């Protein structure tokens, strides 16, 4: 199964939730926000939101800016 992750193709070897993806990426507990197919996935729904083939995921954080 393949998804788009931050604009790049990303292979998943099995069905995963958003929470599992975040954890696999080493981002568990970090201050991030997740968007799935251009809709916000609230933190409280990361565990129950399952990813499907072809999904587009954005994971963002805060950086310096003006």
């Amino acid at each position: 199964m393949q998804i788009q992750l931050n604009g790049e193709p990303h292979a998943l070897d099995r069905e995963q939730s958003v929470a599992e993806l975040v954890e696999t990426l080493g981002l568990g507990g970090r201050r991030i926000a997740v968007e799935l197919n251009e809709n916000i996935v609230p933190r409280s729904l990361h565990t129950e939101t399952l990813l499907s083939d072809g999904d587009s995921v954005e994971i963002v954080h805060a950086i310096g800016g003006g």
Partner: protein
Amino acid sequence: MTEIFQDSPLRVADYSFNSRLLVGTGKYRDFDETGEAIAASGAEVVTFAVRRTNLGQDADAPNLLDVVSPERFTLLPNTAGCYNAKDAVRTCRLARELLDGHKLVKLEVLGDDSTLYPNVVETLKAAETLVADGFDVMVYTSDDPIVARELEAIGCCAVMPLGSLIGSGLGIQNPWNVRLIIEQAQVPVLVDAGIGTASEAALAMELGCDGVLMNSAIAHAREPVLMAQAMKHAVEAGRQAFLAGRMPRRERAEASSPFAGRINA
């Protein structure tokens, strides 16, 4: 006895701030310098950008929000880098999620890379969507008083005209337009972009602005922390001069010492 002057706070939406200087967090050498400069500026509102997380990087790397913590500062996520209303709205929703429901945002929708001039058509569209979605929108815009009026009518909580192009340090190119915007506005007006040095920040405040937002003027100074302190003083001095009311301009001299009693009279 002289009393220490106590200014009224800057009120934006439901917020209240003692400092009228708002600062960005971009272009600093490192997070230490960012933190020191922000502390020296006395700013309470701090802007930041929302970007894709670099995947595969050291997860223990310091995070901007560790330096400017949401507990200490009022964070103002921006939509820098957005060139249409849709991207700007998405970015604001991501920021709200990032900050656990925080709804104050700085909306900027840019026209092109070389000028970073606001695309006011897209800005107006994004502002409508964001206000309807419950955001408190501080909006970066051109120094056009009619556009400023429209943005206020949509429900933006602050109007922030440019002094000159973002990152240019060219100061306030059209103070008369900024005056026109201030005169008609019922919401706070802040000059955002273009300030290069302390006198220009003071000028913004002397014109009657409610505040000034800047990033490069501090971050790109040779000594950012010292410039941050200078900007703090400049914004306070400009504000006090505005409230005090400047003397009228004259075309001829008027002696400060009395004429009567001169030894050569």
